[in-house]
């Protein structure tokens, strides 16, 4: 695995905007342009490395399903950061996970320096099981990049085909009316872009679709309480029976309509994608649970709820159980009793962490010496985001940062096989 420095395509901004990618560049707080899509380089992976990532993804997915079963059976919700009140919903949804509560997608983030770094395996950093993003970039934008730059080349990316198949299966398994509502916050270019792509895929799979902003979703009840059922509606008053939401389950359940949604799902009148049992996997509390169930597994990193369980001298990341996009993550060296020795090596601020932290051993990542876009020399660290669609590994997207912590400003860099 190595990093090639490249000249970007001429007029690449216009090229990616033409396919609907309008969040390729963002602005910093200081108003400076920040390239999110970065084709000044690409990562090149060998077929053996891709095979290894695929195997790791499929295995870790199966291990995660076992971990959900363990959490549900033992009722370990508080340990992973949730109130016990989520138990009924999660158990109800999990019971149907092989029937009408099947998953569509998830993204595992792996640390993997490549096989040129010795006989190493990809190590799971975290699982974005509920609201993974970077989907359109991986599935469509880097595919078009490959098509333009290496038309005969290959890429570990059949995400689009797998997504269409997953939504078709969902449509064919249901009795109709094959109507899907999709929601996210608005305005929010990146989240809306992801939802728009999911809408495209659902249409291709045979659904009639409609987008609605989260705040516009209505709760419709008969004025005379005895006169009929209550349900969610869109702005035209049409009943919402299947809802794709790019909103985390833990936020939805904290919202004023959270109880109604839980009841509608449990009563079978509303299907929500991703299903509610993904709540368990979207907490980083699942990482110590996996380590307990599969100790020393080659695809896992040592993870605990307490720092004292690590050996003295370990480099360990602290991650909030319910954090997102690298926020509130820090890296430090631990002493004999789990105390932090010296100053943290890296840290990112953020609004999370009230629900507690988990601790995870640091692992070598793909890295390359290079230059920033402004020309300073630096080390690029890449995290491999590996997509599981349905139950199958089917492609990757790489996020790169000069920091050891991947965050929402990290750049998306395309890849190819070579």
């Amino acid at each position: 695995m190595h990093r090639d420095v490249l000249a970007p395509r001429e007029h690449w901004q216009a090229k990616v905007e033409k396919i609907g990618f309008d969040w390729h560049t963002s602005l910093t707080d200081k108003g400076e342009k920040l390239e999110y899509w970065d084709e000044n380089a690409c990562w090149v992976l060998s077929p053996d490395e891709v095979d290894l990532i695929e195997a790791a993804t499929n295995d870790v997915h199966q291990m995660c399903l076992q971990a959900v079963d363990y959490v549900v059976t033992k009722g370990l919700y508080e340990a992973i950061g949730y109130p016990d009140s989520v138990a009924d919903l999660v158990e109800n949804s999990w019971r149907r996970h092989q029937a009408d509560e099947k998953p569509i997608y998830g993204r595992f983030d792996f640390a993997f320096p490549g096989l040129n770094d010795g006989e190493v395996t990809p190590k799971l950093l975290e699982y974005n099981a509920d609201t993974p993003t970077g989907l359109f970039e991986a599935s469509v934008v880097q595919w078009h990049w490959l098509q333009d730059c290496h038309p005969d080349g290959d890429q570990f990316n059949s995400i689009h085909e797998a997504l269409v198949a997953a939504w078709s299966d969902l449509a064919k398994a249901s009795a109709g009316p094959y109507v899907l509502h999709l929601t996210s916050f608005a305005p929010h270019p990146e989240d809306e872009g992801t939802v728009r792509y999911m809408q495209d895929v659902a249409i291709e799979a045979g659904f009639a679709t409609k987008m609605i902003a989260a705040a516009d979703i209505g709760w419709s009840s008969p004025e005379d309480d005895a006169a009929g059922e209550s349900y969610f509606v869109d702005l035209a008053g049409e009943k919402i029976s299947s809802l794709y939401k790019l909103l985390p389950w833990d936020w939805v359940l904290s919202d004023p309509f959270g109880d109604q949604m839980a009841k509608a799902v449990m009563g079978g009148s509303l299907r929500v994608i991703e299903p509610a049992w993904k709540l368990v996997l979207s907490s980083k509390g699942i990482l110590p649970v996996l380590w307990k169930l599969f100790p020393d597994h080659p695809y896992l990193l040592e993870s605990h709820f307490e720092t004292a369980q690590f050996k003295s001298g370990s480099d360990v990341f602290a991650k909030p159980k319910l954090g997102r996009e690298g926020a509130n993550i820090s890296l430090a060296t631990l002493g004999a009793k789990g105390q932090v020795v010296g100053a943290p090596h890296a840290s990112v601020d953020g609004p999370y962490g009230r629900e507690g932290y988990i601790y995870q051993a640091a692992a070598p990542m793909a890295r390359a010496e290079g230059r920033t876009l402004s020309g300073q020399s630096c080390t690029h660290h890449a995290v491999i985001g590996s997509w599981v669609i349905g139950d199958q590994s089917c492609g990757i997207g790489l996020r790169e940062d000069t920091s050891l912590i991947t965050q929402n400003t990290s750049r998306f860099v395309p890849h190819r096989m070579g």
Partner: protein
Amino acid sequence: MSNSAIPQSTTKRRRSRYVTTLLVGVAAGALASCDNAQDTDVNIYQSSEACRQDYTPEACDQGFAEAKTQHAQSAPKFATREECLAAGFDNCEAAPTTAASTQSASGGSGMFMPMVMGYMMGRTLGGGMSSVGQQPMQQPRPVYADRSGFLYSGDRAVSRLAPGQALNPNAATTVRTRMSPTGALAGTRTVARSGFGSTGRGMSAGS
């Protein structure tokens, strides 16, 4: 020399064969203004004769001949009829020879594809006032169906027949490609809104 018409794929390809997106709601912020503008009703004609109910015979014949060629080029191909049937299609036929594959002695390409079921056209705007034969005709798209009633054109699904819906052999059949609001609901109801989206506002929901 290897045959260029059929890919000689010995190593496993890892990339999607195709990635097509419809770009439905291109403008950011489109979420806030959902209305009926996304409705798309289309007509499907099973034959040139059905088409002549609405358009001139010349336009129908020419459009359908072109659509038939397009179907032969764009429909999925299978090595055997059995494979085609197993993919979920009830009616499969031999794919005709194309310029790119002229090697088969039987005159066909040796491949099979789902049989074309009809030709799809967007409904003309306005309607009502124009008499038969005066409407400009769009290029029809060939449509084929699978056993579940999903309708496809080329390599993509375009619609689905309603349960029990069959195509009218003599005139246009209207199907819906997107959602249409069902209109007013019976009974008096109250609707509360703004019940989602307050938690985490201002942060990205993605991870």
